């Protein structure tokens, strides 16, 4: 099955989350030496809630769609919930089992499950999520 579904192509092309974020409280840059992906995640946190998020930089479709879908998912969520989603996602792409409830919570991000069978692309599909994890862990 192709990884390049409509959802992914849409996120890759829409660019609605690829924009400068005025007043971001946290910025985290992630690199993938293997393919040159270089993305920055910007987040605005207020009272433990992710008020807004966006990204900049360049990368392959998988890395851009993945960070964009992530941003849609975590926006307006409490940090603790975002963390749960983030952990579930990273487990899923490692091929580990994830509870049904958390699978549901991953919504569109579920399509990246196939990454567990694409070792050369896992880093692309997790770049944005690792940035998020770093931001959350620093809190």
């Amino acid at each position, binding site marked *: 099955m192709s990884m390049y579904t409509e959802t992914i192509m849409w996120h890759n092309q829409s660019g609605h989350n690829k924009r400068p974020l005025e007043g971001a409280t946290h910025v985290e840059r992630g690199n993938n030496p293997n*393919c040159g992906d270089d993305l920055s995640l910007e987040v605005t946190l207020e009272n433990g809630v992710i008020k807004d998020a966006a990204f900049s930089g360049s990368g*392959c*479709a998988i890395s851009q769609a993945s960070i964009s879908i992530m941003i849609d998912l975590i926006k307006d969520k409490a940090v603790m919930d975002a963390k749960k989603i983030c952990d579930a996602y990273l487990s899923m792409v490692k091929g580990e089992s994830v509870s049904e409830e958390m699978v549901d919570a991953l919504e569109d991000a579920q399509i990246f499950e196939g990454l567990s069978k694409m070792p050369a*692309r896992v880093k692309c599909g997790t770049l944005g999520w690792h940035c998020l994890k770093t931001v959350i862990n620093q809190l």
Partner: protein
Amino acid sequence: MTTMNHKGDFPIYETHPGMVYLDHAATSHKPDIVTRRTESYYKTSNSSPHRGAYLLSVKSTELYDRGRKEVLDFLGADERYSTVFTKNATEALNLIAQTHVMENVKAGDEICVSIDAHHSVIVPLQLVAKRKGAILKYLYLDRTGTFENDAITAKTKILALPWISNGLGKIHDVKALLKRAHDVGAVVILDGAQAIGHIPIDFAELDVDFFTFSGHKMYAPQGIGGLVAKKELLEAMPPFLTGGDMIEYVTEQTTTYAGVPERFEAGTQNVAGVVGLMAAIDYIKSYGLTKIHEHEMALTSYALEKLKALPFIEIYGPEDISKRGALITFNVEGIHPHDVASLLDEKWVSIRAGHHCTQPLMKHLELSASCRVSYGFYNTIEDIDKFVDAVKYAREVFGYVDVY
């Protein structure tokens, strides 16, 4: 146009008849003769070479030593040269850096490296340069593989370069570069990984110092490679890895070492690998490098023609096809190389995307990544057609409506 099809020699095409494998520059598939002879070695002669007085050990020793000779013959290297076996080209390049370069380069000396060199050439030399206070300089190339500067000076002690660049496909003018380096008294490390098994090589016409290669890129098994070097250089070199088999006398506090080439081969060596390498050499010889090179040139020329017809493709490397090895690097407008590779994989077309272990070259060319197709004797014109079709498919998935 070539109509040769040698897939029948390669059992992997029985398993995957539909596969279009175009990552030969990373590693080659193995003809039947290579796996059969390796298996037969284990079935008839398996043992530890050099050490035993018994029949199997004698057989293994003979095979191993014959391997050294056959590598020399294959390269047209005479008795001034010797073969040292390693696990891959990278080990061979580390060996040279840690011994010859470490011993011969002083603070202020210059080590000159072609910017299209593989990480396995660059990183070991960086470490030696740093430790010795030597200066690491680069010969720069543009996107067509043309040199942009001449960094070789009277201070140059080492020149290192790929015979054929795995990032640009350029066949370097090795003869001229060897002469240029020798004129200033420099020793040349020639990375033959992409040349061996592709183009006729004849040391007799050149004055090679060090030549390194990997078996797995030339139809031989994984885990065997080596270097061919002037004995006079090897003899002046201290050991690299140490331990069993490369020693003469070991006492509690000191050790004396074996002669050349044993001094550079520590521990039990991979005789089966050498047997496989000899089988690969026989396989190559059975068709002849002239014929192999012609076939690969035909593929290059056909692929270039097809790719040039696509306006959304940017091609790197020399215009002059006689200066091209069996690979083409390129980019597809609007699609990241890694996405190209993944989309081609959906069509069973296997290519490489990324920096091809040549980050300094990519940086210099201002490319973050590229796609690479590379081929060997088993590839066909149909493979190229399927590859080009798959590229068109990738564009479609990305929503492009192309008119050819």
